[in-house]
């Protein structure tokens, strides 16, 4: 089964943490989204009953929580990683992910990542953000962590040789027994295709053809990966992508729904 999701709570500012979590999980279920991106500021202590409720929703609806750590040196993030991992453990959210961006690779970064506790490393993954993919893969292999492949970041490097599918497959393989996670998004190409408030280089909607190409390639490789759409239009863009799959690639539908291997 391929789980999909996109950000549907872009900037929470209202409500106490407990009801926010309840609303966040229920909204994901209502939108039929199983990948839930959580802002790092919402990782805060909750009442015990709330952890149980979130855990129950995660188990029942097979939700997967994804938290992006701030972009900083991993040494400054140890406390953050531990806080997030403790939260995941309290919710019994076993396949949740802490996505970490490593701006530069030096010995201190590598040492810090290797020396992190087993609890944190169980959830941690490194997102591919920049640089040559094979060099990045080599660096991440040394710290024995999985890679979150990002379709947009790969294309922003204008790589040559151009092998996005090979890179995606290699990233999925790095997850070993854990379910893999991919970031799917498209670059904005025109001013009119962009939201007024910042979504960086991400387009509002996904380029459907490349999304289907990637999914079909993953299927042909006999693999599976959860997909998180980083798009401005959020749930509307995800619905559009799902409709496009049904219309243009109906053979993928049973595989996405977990009905075939």
């Amino acid at each position, binding site marked *: 089964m391929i789980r999909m999701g996109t950000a*549907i*709570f*872009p*900037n*929470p*500012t*209202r*409500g*106490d943490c407990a*009801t*926010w979590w*309840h*609303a*966040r999980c*229920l*909204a994901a279920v*209502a*939108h039929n989204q199983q990948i839930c991106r959580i802002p790092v500021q919402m990782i805060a202590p909750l009442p015990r009953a709330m952890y149980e409720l979130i855990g129950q929703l995660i188990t029942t609806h097979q939700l997967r929580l994804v938290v992006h750590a701030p972009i900083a040196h991993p040494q400054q993030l140890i406390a953050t990683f531990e806080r997030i991992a403790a939260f995941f453990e309290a919710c019994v959210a076993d396949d949740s992910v802490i996505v970490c961006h490593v701006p530069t690779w030096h010995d201190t970064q590598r040492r810090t990542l290797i020396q992190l506790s087993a609890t944190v490393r169980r959830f941690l993954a490194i997102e591919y953000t920049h640089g040559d993919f094979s060099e990045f893969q080599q660096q991440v292999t040394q710290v024995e962590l999985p890679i979150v492949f990002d379709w947009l970041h790969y294309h922003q490097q204008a790589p040559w040789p151009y092998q996005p599918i090979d890179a995606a497959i290699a990233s999925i393989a790095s997850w070993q027994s854990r379910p893999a996670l991919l970031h799917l998004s498209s670059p904005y190409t025109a001013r009119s295709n962009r*939201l*007024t408030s910042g979504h960086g280089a991400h387009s*509002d909607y996904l380029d459907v053809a490349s999304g289907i190409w990637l999914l079909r390639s993953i299927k042909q490789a006999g693999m599976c990966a959860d997909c998180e759409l980083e798009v*401005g*239009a*959020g*749930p*509307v863009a995800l*619905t559009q992508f799902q409709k496009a799959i049904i219309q243009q690639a109906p053979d993928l539908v049973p595989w996405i729904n977990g009905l075939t291997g």
Partner: protein
Amino acid sequence: MYIPDDATVLIGIIKTATDLDTLISAQHYHIPIAHANLAYNADYFAAYLPKWHPTMAWHIGYVARINTCTIGLRQECCPHQPHHPRAMQYYVGLHLADITPCEPLIASRQWRRVWLHTTTGATLMRTPELGQLVRTQRRFFSQSLMPTSTTNYTD
């Protein structure tokens, strides 16, 4: 009521006179859980009155401050509609305060299908009419994502 420029305002439709009574007497408004992100972002609420209202049709008639958000089943929010098709679905309840008539009234001259929309205090209070919001802001309606149809339901 003064709405600060940087405040986020949720514009919501008041579909019936009963809903308006609930809004004013119980200081309460509810939206489906699928759109909870709009509620959790918002600081103020603006009530849009469609054509049923005798004097303020197609206008933003009331504004209020949002105090808290709670989650509950629809039948808890609307005990007068126990047989509604979405009675057993989760809704976000907005608990409001300081409900006051909007002065001056903000009309919607062309854009009639206002349902749920977020904007800022600065944009709302300076807009000559609601249709301007559509031209100045991108919006993504996800109304079509709602799973249950209420076509054949009447109160």
